[in-house]
């Protein structure tokens, strides 16, 4: 264990700050930037509407379709905006009201109320679902996937390119221990980067919610959801890390394992049940706390790719993922024992 830790400490710098993998930070921070940006836009809208006249929603809801615009104005008062235009021989008018949290547009045709549209300044439920979608479809499938590719494949392949791998092989260390030490370095780096990225983006999601929504969420699911989001990002690093560490031992070109793995993860839903369990994403999807929104109109083929085929329980998923990781690391340790230094010059 001591040797593993010494190797991990020596390798940590390369894992965190390899010039070849600095783009990993961009991937990890993207969702946080996205939600912080959205938060700023929500705050801006809130401040914009803070001084606007408030019309109770009940007043607006009571106005039946077909009511003349003059009567509506008399009932609901002056709107925030009043737009008139003519289209297809119809006089159109749109009155915007604000009920304190929603923007409501009353649409008129030839002076009679035709429909009403309501848009909230911000909906926590909606944001929560969007976050779940971003987390599963972008963060786990792409960011963690390619981030681990960048970090782990460099641990051996990068040293072969730099012609410095032999220094490790000339240390009095079993090759399997070396592999585990490097894996730990990569795992610590990727878990900090992507676990931190998940924490940051989750914080960004909460940062702009109304105090009522926030209090309600904090008292119910916030801790549970946050923990599982961070945990699933870290477990993604555990699984993908082992795969790409092994790939770095076997292949010169990182594009090949990336494409093969991406394809494997994508077609997972079509595979027999046993083979599905050899997928990292299969387990990660099972432990994500919120199901991402899937449009009912999504074709069945796409639905199979996006949704887990047969979700397992969280703890079974964790154990399954660890088992897959152990299997991959065992195969990698057998490879590293046979690995020779051949930088192409003799």
């Amino acid at each position, binding site marked *: 264990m001591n*040797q593993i830790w010494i190797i991990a400490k020596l390798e940590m710098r390369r894992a965190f700050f390899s010039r070849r993998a600095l783009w990993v930070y961009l991937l990890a921070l993207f969702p946080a930037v996205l939600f912080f940006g959205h938060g700023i836009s929500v705050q801006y809208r809130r401040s914009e509407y803070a001084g606007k006249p408030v019309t109770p929603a009940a007043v607006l809801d009571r106005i039946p379709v077909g009511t003349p615009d003059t009567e509506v104005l008399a009932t609901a008062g002056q709107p925030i905006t009043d737009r008139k235009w003519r289209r297809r021989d119809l006089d159109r008018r749109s009155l915007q009201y604000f009920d304190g949290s929603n923007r409501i547009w009353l649409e008129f045709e030839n002076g009679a109320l035709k429909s009403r549209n309501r848009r909230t300044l911000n909906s926590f439920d909606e944001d929560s679902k969007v976050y779940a979608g971003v987390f599963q479809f972008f963060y786990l499938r792409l960011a963690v996937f390619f981030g681990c590719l960048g970090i782990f494949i460099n641990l051996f392949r990068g040293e072969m390119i730099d012609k410095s791998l032999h220094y490790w092989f000339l240390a009095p260390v079993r090759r399997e221990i070396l592999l585990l030490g490097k894996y730990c370095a990569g795992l610590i780096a990727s878990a900090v980067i992507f676990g931190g990225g998940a924490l940051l983006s989750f914080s960004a999601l909460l940062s702009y919610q109304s105090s009522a929504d926030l209090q309600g969420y904090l008292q119910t699911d916030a801790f549970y959801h946050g923990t599982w989001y961070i945990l699933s990002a870290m477990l993604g690093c555990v699984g993908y890390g082992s795969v790409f560490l092994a790939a770095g031992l076997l292949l010169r070109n990182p594009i090949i394992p990336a494409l093969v793995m991406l394809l494997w993860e994508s077609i997972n839903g079509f595979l027999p049940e046993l083979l599905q369990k050899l997928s990292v994403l299969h387990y990660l999807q099972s432990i994500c706390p919120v199901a991402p929104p899937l449009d009912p109109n999504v074709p069945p083929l796409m639905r199979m790719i996006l949704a887990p085929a047969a979700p397992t329980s969280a703890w079974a998923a964790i154990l399954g993922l660890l088992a897959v990781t152990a299997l991959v690391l065992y195969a990698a340790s057998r490879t590293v024992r046979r690995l020779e230094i051949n930088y192409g010059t003799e």
Partner: protein
Amino acid sequence: MSDDQILFHNVSKFYGDVLGVNKVDLRIPPGITSLVGPNGSGKTTLMNLMTGLVHPGSGSISVRGVSPFAPEKLMRIVGYATQYDAAPRGVTGFGFVLAGLLLHGFPRAEAERRAALAIETVALTHASSRKIAAYSKGMRQRIRLAQAIAHEPEVLVLDEPLNGLDPLVRAETIALFRDYAARGRHVILSSHVLQEVDVFSDQVILIANGMIVAEGEIRNVRDEIHEHPSQFLLHCQQPSRVAALLFEQAEVLAVKIDPEGRGVLVTTRHRDAFAAAVQRIALSGIEIDGVLPMDENVDALYEYLIGGGK
């Protein structure tokens, strides 16, 4: 298996279709042993094989009783300064040597002491805090040597260790090798210039095209030098007459007029007898301006043994 020798038994190594070494049998006792051969002859392969960086396709290797397949044991007794002129990115000279010692399991304080000592031995203390990327080629050579000796290995393996060293450091490095050998340790080093290593080597292994051409103690190799034909140029004013006189000498194998008109080119196997003959000719009144050995260096033996140029 012998616990104080390095043994190669029928070892072959191919890189795909390319021969590395072929059917090598070696028994290397402690002392300074030089592997000599031209570029691509298999010297580095032999060193990589004995340190486990590459694995033999067939045959077996033992380094003081330890298999190269057990790096956790082997690298405790072996230090290897490779020819690869690269170091981990961003690391200082001190950090580089220290990292190796930490991997050996030395406590940090002891590792720092040993690292400083090893760096001092190779005269790099002044540059130890600088990044290796900023080192000159000679300094990189020395810092690799420092890492190889820092844990005081019983077997020191050095690939072209004298390349890029200035004369003073070279002399100090050779003294270090001698000190190691005097303590019953192995110093295995490679060179493609026999002349460079024959002065201080106890043994020489000549290798060409992946095969051992000759091996043995350096004095035996030197004897072979004396036995193999040598060529001399006699500067003289009457080359035809000198050539005729030399033809009469039994110890002379061949005589020809130098095409550049400097005198006579003579090939002989017995230098002392040849010297006496030249003296007799000079005493007979024929003016000899000088005698110049044309191939009097150990490289000549090397060319002679491998049957080709370097």
